[in-house]
């Protein structure tokens, strides 16, 4: 009788070990394979590209939504009037390294308006973020 009592807890313990192993493995996989990036304010479907200039960790990232609105940090602005806000936004972030995440379906006009405003503000070069082509 005492032997029957002892048996069940031991078996339960032993079946738990492979589970823990798998969970640990998954944990390590996600730790190594994933990169943690802060989430953007709006979901942007990046255009597909082939070239990579390997610019990383841009201090200033502007988003262009599919409907053409430009997000500076946490506020959306029409690209036609973005210049003054850009000046304020980039004042503490620097002009040298500016990234633009534009939606693939965004009007090219909005992106160009934004880039023109950037030139007026004093930014000579922008980095367009693309997704690696399939």
């Amino acid at each position, binding site marked *: 009788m005492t032997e029957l009592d002892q048996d069940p807890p031991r078996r339960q313990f032993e079946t738990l070990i492979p589970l823990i192993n798998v969970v640990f493995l998954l944990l390590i996989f996600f730790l190594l394979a994933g990169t943690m990036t802060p989430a953007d304010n709006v979901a942007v479907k990046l255009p597909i590209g082939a070239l990579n*200039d*390997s610019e990383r960790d841009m201090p200033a990232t502007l988003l262009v939504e599919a409907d053409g609105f430009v997000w500076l940090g946490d506020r959306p602005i029409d690209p036609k009037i973005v210049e003054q806000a850009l000046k304020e936004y980039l004042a503490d972030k620097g002009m040298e390294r500016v990234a633009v995440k534009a939606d693939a379906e965004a009007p090219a006009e909005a992106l160009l308006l934004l880039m023109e405003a950037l030139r007026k503000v004093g930014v000579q070069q922008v980095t367009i973020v693309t997704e690696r082509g399939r």
Partner: protein
Amino acid sequence: MFDEPARRRNMASLTPLIDVVFLLLIFFMLTTSFLKTQSLSVVTPAPNASELPTDARVVEIWLMGDGTLRVDGTPVERANLTEAVKAGIGGRKDMTVTILAESGSRTQAFVSAIEAARQAGARDVGTARVEKITP
């Protein structure tokens, strides 16, 4: 008699560990992203489109409002864009590619055009937006 309490203590200490590991697992599953991004450096356009050069050393890519592409006025498929620009450049080293985006064209076409121009070996890539391209 003395064996049993020792084993039970052993098992009890394992459960919180599993809880924490599960929590960590869920945290990393939700926060990681596997999207591979690349970057494309582009010179910002001059506010005035008339500053762009228009002489013989320029290949123009037109992004039409209906989504089609043209190189120097000839319609081109997106897959053949690089070859068309390369043919327009013709091995010269001092050629400029100008990308004109009509209103209605999309960012994807714009990015493809910039990449095609760079891959074709243009010395300089200029961009401008225009309301309507009149061939």
